[in-house]
């Protein structure tokens, strides 16, 4: 069941012809180690179109987070290239092309919820007045109206992560990158946030790149799922999802959903055999 990564170069062009927001070409990342360097990513190719919800899924050590971090210019490629909106990832970062949500909310404890959401706007030189209005609006979109004056430690973990999503969306980036944002939350909270995130995506159609190791999460959220394998990190398979956009959590009981979950499971198992 070994699928060559070359095969996936065709995949992106299959449906609509919208321009690529992210284009990854022959990307390799390796870290120097004592005897031989560790290959985190090995010649990965991927194109992400505008408005897609892409999940990167795979076992730990498959380089899914590394891939996201290279796109975000948080890590450097050893070879190959990454283009974000046609720019290098470095230029794209300086152009504030994306919002990034980390595994932890990373809220500043000395700032209120509102001030936390205002942080990137302040840094980007918006006026305090404008920043406050935008921050309020984005807090409303993640359902946190009324919590503006609270400090992060007064909020639950799920609420904190919603604040961090509002913060990432505040400056209206076209691209939203999320690195296992709900990994530390309990399953009930995670389900609820997944549904809210999907509604948000459905409404605004921003491009989302989402790293997860949860099969149901990837199957539920994504319009396309990139399955990766470890040592070296490679793309094993790319699975398109045709679930309706207005799906709710109940869809997880349907055969269509189970079929996608099954394909994911098979692809992950095949990747494990490498």
């Amino acid at each position, binding site marked *: 069941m070994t699928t060559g990564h070359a095969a996936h170069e065709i995949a992106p062009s299959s449906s609509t012809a919208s321009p690529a927001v992210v284009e990854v070409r022959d990307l390799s990342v390796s870290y120097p180690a004592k005897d031989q360097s560790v290959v985190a990513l090995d010649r990965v190719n991927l194109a992400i179109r505008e408005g897609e919800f892409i999940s990167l899924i795979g076992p730990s050590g498959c380089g899914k987070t590394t891939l996201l971090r290279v796109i975000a210019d948080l890590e450097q490629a050893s070879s190959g290239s990454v283009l974000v909106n046609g720019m290098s990832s470095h230029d794209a*970062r300086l152009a*504030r092309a994306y919002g990034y949500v980390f*595994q*932890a909310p990373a809220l500043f*404890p000395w700032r209120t919820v509102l001030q936390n959401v205002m*942080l990137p706007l302040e840094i980007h030189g918006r006026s305090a007045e404008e920043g406050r209005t935008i921050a309020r609006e984005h807090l409303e979109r993640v359902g946190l109206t009324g919590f503006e004056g609270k400090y992060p430690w007064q909020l639950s973990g799920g609420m904190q992560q919603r604040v961090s999503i509002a913060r990432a969306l505040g400056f209206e980036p076209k691209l939203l990158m999320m690195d296992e944002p709900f990994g530390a939350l309990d399953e009930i909270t995670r389900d609820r946030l997944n549904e809210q995130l999907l509604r948000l995506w459905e409404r605004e159609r921003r491009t989302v790149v989402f790293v997860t190791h949860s099969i149901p999460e990837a199957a539920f959220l994504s319009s396309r799922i990139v399955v990766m394998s470890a040592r070296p990190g490679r793309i094993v398979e790319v699975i398109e999802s045709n679930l309706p956009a207005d799906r709710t959590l109940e869809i997880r009981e349907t055969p269509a959903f189970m079929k996608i979950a099954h394909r994911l499971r098979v692809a992950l198992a095949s990747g494990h055999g490498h």
Partner: protein
Amino acid sequence: MATELAPKTPSASPPRGGSRSAWGGPAPTEARIFDRVLPVLAVLAGIGVVWYLAAVWLNAPQVIERVFADRPSFGWRELIGHTWSMDRPVLPAPHQIALDMFHSIADWPPDSPRSLLYHAGVTSGATLLGFMLGSLLGAVLAVLIVHLPTLERAVFPWIIASQTVPVLAIAPIIIVILGSFNLTGLLPKALISMYLCFFPVVVAMVKGLRSPGVFERELMHTYAASKNQTFWKLRIPASLPFLFPSLRVAIAAGLVGAIVGELPTGAQAGLGARLLTGSYYGNTVQIWSALTMSALLGLVLTACISLVERALVAGGKQ
């Protein structure tokens, strides 16, 4: 309000609305004040008892020698009464110190050299100037160290070495050298105070400026924040919870520095001068009142820092 003064860890602050209020006891605020004040009073009472006993024990030989020398027998009540009211006791009783302080403050105007307030004012002036200079030096050094790793290796051993030199040895040297430039009075004392102040601030501030985690720093990176923005919006606010405890330590150390700086000046003014003249003339009560005054001054100064902290890091507690 009372909990705001408590240590910043939630476990250390008294529980809100605990079993006491559930049982119809005093209101939570009262209960918390009660919880905080009672242990302090208990310790105070303990110290008082030990103190009075120690005064009897330490002063009795002198009393026997001077007052009862020509009397074959005396009652123990009489003995104790004398040990607690001697003119120049080895250890004055607490009420003697309190009375001496009260008279010095109540009987003289605050600008008279006989008023303890005057001397406390002189010492706190030197302490505050030294504290400001020292904290500024400490903060600037910390910022430089955080930005230039080479500087840390070059400077840190010297900073630590500077604190191993006894301040008692450094103080006269500073005063003599500055005196040769006709710099006397406040400045030399402030410099000695600064010498003790800057150290805790450097150590804490370096730690505080380096406290932001990987996510926080990477977050600023994804915003394409400038070094300046990362410094003012992340590193500085993150360092404040580290800075303030060190400022409390610094101001207390600075007070010691200022008092030590007053000793070799020929004892003109200040609590250090009071200590020195007291020991010249064997006036132990005066020494003890100057001591008590400096302890009270230390408490007031650290309380001021805590007030500033409450105003600046209101939301910072976790």
